[in-house]
C-alpha cells in the first residue's frame, strides 16, 4: 500500500458528499456536513439545495461558514428566511437529507449530544440538541458523521437527544414521528454503515482502506451486523481533494486538532 494522500476527515467528507443526490434538499449543520454539501454541489450535484436551520436557503457557499447562521449561509441564496420557516418546511416534508453528529450513538442510530453522565449531575455538559432533534425527526434520510470508538458506539446512551429508530421497527411511528424518516447512513473514521431493513439495527456497508472487520468490532460496544463480504470504501479522487481544500481554505474543519 502506498502512502495515503488524504486524511480520514477528507475521506469522510467525500463519502458523505457522494451520498447526496442532485436536485434534492439537504439540511446542513456546522463543520464536516457543510464541506461535504459544498463538495457535492461542485461535483455531481450542482442543483443540490443547501438549507440552514437559521434561515439560509439555497446559498452559493463562497467559503466555509463558521456558524449555521453566519452571512455565508445565505450568500447569493434563493431566500434569507427564518428558523420558523425552515423548520416548518422540514416538517411539511420538503427536506430530503439531513446531517447529524454525536458524542454517543447506539445500534438504532439514536444520538446523544446533551450530556455524559447523569443529566442532573453531568460529568460533561454538551451543548444539547440544537437543531439535531429537528433534523433527526423531520428529514427523510439522515446521515450521521462521527468518530467511532467504544465510548461513542455504546450499548446504552446516557441521554437520547435525537431519535434514530428508537427501540426498533415501528417505534418512530408509534412515538408520533413523521413516517418514512430516520437514519440512513453512519460515516466514521473506520467505515460506512446503514440500517437493516427488518431490525433497524446498524450494519456495516464498507470498511475504509486499511481497516479490518476486527478494528470495526473492537471499536463498538454493540454488535454491528456484518455483510457476507465486506466492501472497501472508495478513496477520495484528486479532484475531490482539490475542491475540499479549496472550500475550507482556512482549515476550519480539515485542519482541526
Amino acid at each position, binding site marked *: 500500500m502506498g502512502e495515503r494522500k488524504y486524511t480520514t476527515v477528507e475521506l469522510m467528507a467525500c463519502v458523505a458528499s457522494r451520498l447526496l443526490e442532485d436536485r434534492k434538499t439537504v439540511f446542513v449543520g456546522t463543520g464536516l456536513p457543510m464541506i461535504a454539501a459544498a463538495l457535492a454541489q461542485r461535483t455531481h450535484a450542482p442543483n443540490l439545495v443547501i438549507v440552514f436551520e437559521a*434561515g439560509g436557503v439555497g446559498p452559493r457557499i463562497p467559503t466555509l461558514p463558521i456558524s449555521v447562521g453566519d452571512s455565508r449561509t445565505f450568500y447569493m441564496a434563493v431566500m434569507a428566511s427564518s*428558523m420558523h420557516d425552515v423548520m416548518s418546511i422540514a416538517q411539511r416534508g420538503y427536506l430530503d437529507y439531513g446531517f447529524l453528529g454525536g458524542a454517543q450513538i447506539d445500534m438504532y442510530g439514536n444520538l446523544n449530544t446533551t450530556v455524559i453522565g447523569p443529566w442532573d449531575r453531568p460529568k460533561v455538559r454538551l451543548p444539547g440538541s440544537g437543531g439535531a432533534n429537528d433534523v433527526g*425527526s423531520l428529514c427523510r434520510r439522515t446521515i450521521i458523521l462521527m468518530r467511532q470508538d467504544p465510548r461513542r458506539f455504546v450499548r446504552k446512551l446516557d441521554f437520547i437527544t435525537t431519535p434514530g429508530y428508537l427501540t426498533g421497527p415501528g417505534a418512530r411511528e408509534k412515538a408520533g414521528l413523521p413516517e418514512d424518516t430516520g437514519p440512513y447512513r453512519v460515516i466514521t473514521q473506520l467505515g460506512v454503515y446503514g440500517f437493516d431493513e427488518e431490525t433497524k439495527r446498524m450494519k456495516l456497508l464498507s470498511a475504509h482502506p486499511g481497516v479490518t472487520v476486527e478494528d470495526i468490532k473492537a471499536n463498538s460496544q454493540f454488535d454491528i451486523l456484518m455483510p457476507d463480504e465486506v466492501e472497501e470504501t472508495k478513496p477520495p479522487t484528486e479532484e475531490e481533494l482539490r475542491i475540499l481544500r479549496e472550500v475550507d481554505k482556512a482549515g476550519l474543519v480539515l485542519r482541526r486538532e
Partner: protein
Amino acid sequence: MEVLLEGEGELLAWHDPDEMRRWVAENKSKELVDKRMELREAVKKFVSDGCYIAFGGFGHVRVSMAVIYEIIRQRKRGLVMAGKTAVHDVDILVAAGCVEKVEVAYSFGHELRGLSPASRRAVEQGRVKVASEWSNAAFQWRFLAAAMGLPFIPTRVMLGTDTLRKSSAKVVRDPYTGKPICLVPACYPDVAVIHVHRCDIYGNCQIDGISVEDFELARAAKRLIVTTEEIIDHERVRREPYRTIIPYFLVDAVVEVPWGAHPCNMPYMYYFDEEHIAEWLRLSKTEEGVREYLDKYVYGVDSFEEYLELVGGVRKLEYLKRLEQLREELKIPGR
C-alpha cells in the same frame, strides 16, 4: 385530549394568554414617541434581577453584545436565559455570574470553535442550573405560540426522546389524526434584546438577511430593547413598510450602537472577530482568565466606543468589514 406523556422540565415564562393580553393593554403604549435612550438606562429600566431574558440573533450572529456587556457591568443577578442557540451571550453572562438558570436548546458550545469552557464549568459544578431541554425548532415555536397569543403549539419534533422528557412539553393524542403529537408551551420572556440593522426613533425595525426567530421573539416578549447600527428617518420606514419586521409598538427602548454586535457577525456589515473570540475562549479556561477578560473589556471601560477602541479600533473594524464583503481571507488564530 388524552395526555400521553408530560415532560419533567421546569415550566418557565409561560402565562395564560388572557393574562398576557391584559398585560399588553395595561403596559404597552401605542403612542408614537421617541424611545431613544442610553444603554445604561435601557438595561437599568428593563432588565431586572431574576427576569427571564432572551437575545435575538443566532449563536454569534447579530447578537446585541453592547447590552450583554452593560448587563454584566450593572452586575445583574439571577437571570433566567433562553438558550435558543445561545452561544456567546449565555457563555459570557454565565461566566460573569449573572445567570441562575438556562433553558437549553443549544448552549455551552461555540459551534465549530468548540465547547465553552466557562459556562460548561458552571453547569458541571452546579453553579448554573439547566431548567429544561429543547430542540431549536421547539424553542422558537414556543415564541411563535406566544406571538400568536396561544398557550401552546403542536409540533412533530422531540417525540420519543429524552429531550422531550426533560422539557416542559406534553405529548397528547391529536384529535384529528389519532397520532401522538408534541405540544410545546408558549414562552413569554420578560424581556428580549434584539440587535437590528436600522430603525427609526420610535422603534420600527429593519433586519437585513435571515431574521432567525426575531419576528416571533419580538412579539412574544413583554419588554423589548432594540439596539441598532443606525437610526433612520421615519419617512424612510413609511416609504418601504414591507421592510419593517418589528413595528414600533412592540419596542420599549431604542439604543443606537454602531458595531453593537462585535465580536459577532452582522450580516452585510461585518464578520466575526475570530481573534477576539479566540481570546475569550483561551482566557475563559480559568476563573482568573474570566476575571482578566471582564476587567479589561467590560468593567474597565465606560462605553461601547471605548471597548471598540480596545479591541482594535478603526483598523480592526475595517478589516471585519472587508472580511464580510469577502475582500479579505479569513485567518483563524492557531490554524
